[in-house]
């Protein structure tokens, strides 16, 4: 019997597929299973029903962390898209020294979130950072204490996050703008349509798939926004800037509370699945349009 190229290809892929199914989906199932057990330091297989979920949902820290996922996520994605788009349009206007600006705005993305967080933490620390410096210049009443206020500290995360990621959005959207056919612009000019209306009604809808790509990339940053939080606020003051990823890591690895952490991880997974299904819908809408 002759072996077809397709059969060979399938055969070669078997290890990869097995690895993905067992290593990835297997781990997910295992985590979901653990969330129904009272596991502490090591996994146990005793059934505990929804106990861990009940405890989780009544934990104030989880409520704060879960809410922050949406507060931080919404603001971060919104501002990143807005800032990135404006920067891309500015570049598209043909400013002088374009590549210099491009490098400057893209540079932060080369830094890890840990470095970003640390840098902003030092800048924003009222006792030793910017506030102290400006006061030492003689402006005694200058106040910049975002980091020490439980209500406002979440915005420091947004600021640092946008500073970090807006450049990425800029580059992706700028590439999109560059690929827009010059004929379309010419047609617009012939019809006498103002530039801003061209952007809003013609060019941007054409960029829709790229916006969705940015959305997905930024969305993943939000879900795994562990390192930024750890480096910048540590979840504080109090636990006002906690996020689900940090809650989960703390409970798995520091508190030896495997059951509770698994329940939290499962809820986070559910949330992500729902959100990404929504993004999928958006993408399809874009394609249909």
């Amino acid at each position: 019997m002759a072996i077809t190229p397709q059969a060979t290809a399938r055969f070669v892929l078997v290890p990869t597929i097995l690895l993905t199914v067992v290593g990835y989906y297997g781990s997910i199932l295992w985590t979901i299973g653990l969330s129904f057990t009272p596991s502490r330091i090591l996994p146990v297989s005793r059934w505990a029903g929804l106990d861990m979920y009940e405890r989780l949902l009544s934990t104030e820290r989880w409520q704060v962390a879960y809410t922050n996922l949406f507060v931080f996520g919404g603001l971060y994605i919104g501002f990143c898209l807005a800032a990135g788009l404006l920067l891309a349009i500015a570049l598209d206007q043909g400013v002088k020294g374009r590549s210099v600006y491009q490098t400057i705005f893209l540079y932060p993305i080369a830094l890890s979130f840990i470095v970003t967080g640390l840098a902003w933490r030092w800048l924003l620390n009222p006792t030793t950072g910017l506030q102290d410096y400006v006061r030492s210049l003689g402006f005694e009443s200058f106040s910049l204490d975002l980091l020490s206020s439980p209500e406002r500290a979440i915005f420091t995360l947004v600021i640092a996050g946008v500073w970090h990621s807006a450049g990425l959005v800029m580059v992706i959207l700028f590439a999109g703008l560059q690929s827009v056919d010059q004929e379309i612009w010419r047609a617009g000019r012939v019809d006498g349509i103002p530039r801003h209306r061209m952007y809003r009604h013609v060019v941007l809808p054409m960029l829709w798939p790229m916006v969705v790509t940015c959305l997905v990339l930024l969305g993943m940053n939000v879900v795994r926004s562990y390192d930024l939080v750890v480096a910048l606020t540590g979840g504080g003051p109090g636990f006002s800037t906690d996020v689900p990823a940090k809650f989960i890591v703390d409970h798995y690895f520091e508190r030896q509370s495997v059951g509770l952490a698994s329940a939290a991880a499962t809820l986070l997974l559910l949330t992500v699945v729902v959100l990404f299904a929504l993004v999928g819908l958006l993408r399809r809408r874009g394609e249909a349009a």
Partner: protein
Amino acid sequence: MQQKNGARVGRAIALACGTALPAVTAAEEVEVIHWLVTGGESAAIQHVADKVEDLGTTWVELVPPDGGAGARALFTSRIGGGDPPGALFASVGKEAIDLGEQGILRDIRPFVEAEGLIDSVPAFALEIASLESGELYAVPLAFETQNFMWYSIPAFEAAGVEPPTGWGEFLAAAPALQEAGIIPIAVGAQPWQLNILHFSILTAEFGQDGFNALYRDQDPAMAESDAIVESFRILRELSVLADQGNSNRSWNDTLSLVAEGRAGLQVMGSWAGGELAAMGETYGTDWGCAMAGGDTWIVGTTGFMIPDLGQESTGQDDFVRALLDPATQTAFSIDKGSIPSRTDASTEGLSECSLKVAEGMAEGRGLPNPNALLSGDAAGQIGDLLMNFWADTSVTPESAAAQFADIILNDF
């Protein structure tokens, strides 16, 4: 060609067999998982390694790149794979009891008692890793003091007040410090740092008996006593006295405020002493150390958990002998900035601050780190409670104390 290949295969088979058979002639070895990698720490563990080699056992160290979390992951996977390592570096405490109860660790008591190695180790350091029926699951190597008060001598001189010896005294002196433009107390608001501050205050408030009643015996009368409310009241006053920049500040950034004389004092463990010296500050003229209130030292016990290998192992035995060798302990502690777990080990060469602790320990004025008596889960919940209390002034000391009691009493 054929023959050559045959010979190669033969050698490979011989090699495979050789590794499969127990190495009878080779020296015994012990595999040790630890993460003592910074300058002083790695010099310290080297003393243990040298002693192990002196006893005739090969020292094999497994050092994960990502510290404690990585070590625990490595340990868990080795246990899961049926190939336990010889020892795991750990803070001695409830984790050892948990793992011991699951049959993963070796009861080390018969061996160390037979060799007379633990006679001078303070009882609490053994109790925190023992079952009530006596099984001992971890070997204490050194003590890290938790409740030190590191103060800036120039700061207190500028304010014209004496460095305090208790919390009442400190609160009385705080306005003078503030008037002199000095931050009375430098705090880094991270869970573990607030925890050290809180249990230092708590222990100063209710002493050794209260400590044991609360953390060890989980006595409801103690958990609901006024001393707990008072400790939160003091903590609330401190949260007002601390500077704005305390949120998520690392302990060494916080310490530099003391080193620069911008802050009066910081409550932090013994490791801060080495850091102050490393910052180029001189003990006695720039900074001093004292107990953070009360008369009892709270010490974290550093040591090793000893897995059950399922068979006799001279390598593992030699390792335990090295850990509890008085001279090795002293050498380790000098480099690590800790104090030996054996109170009969020489204290020559220890720093002035360490000597104060060693003296107290020899007099029986020592207590374990409360975290060693709590599950990781409960310790974490207390961290959350403290973080929230510290940042949110609308939480009253009474309600914080009630939540605190709740966590302690529900821990198992």
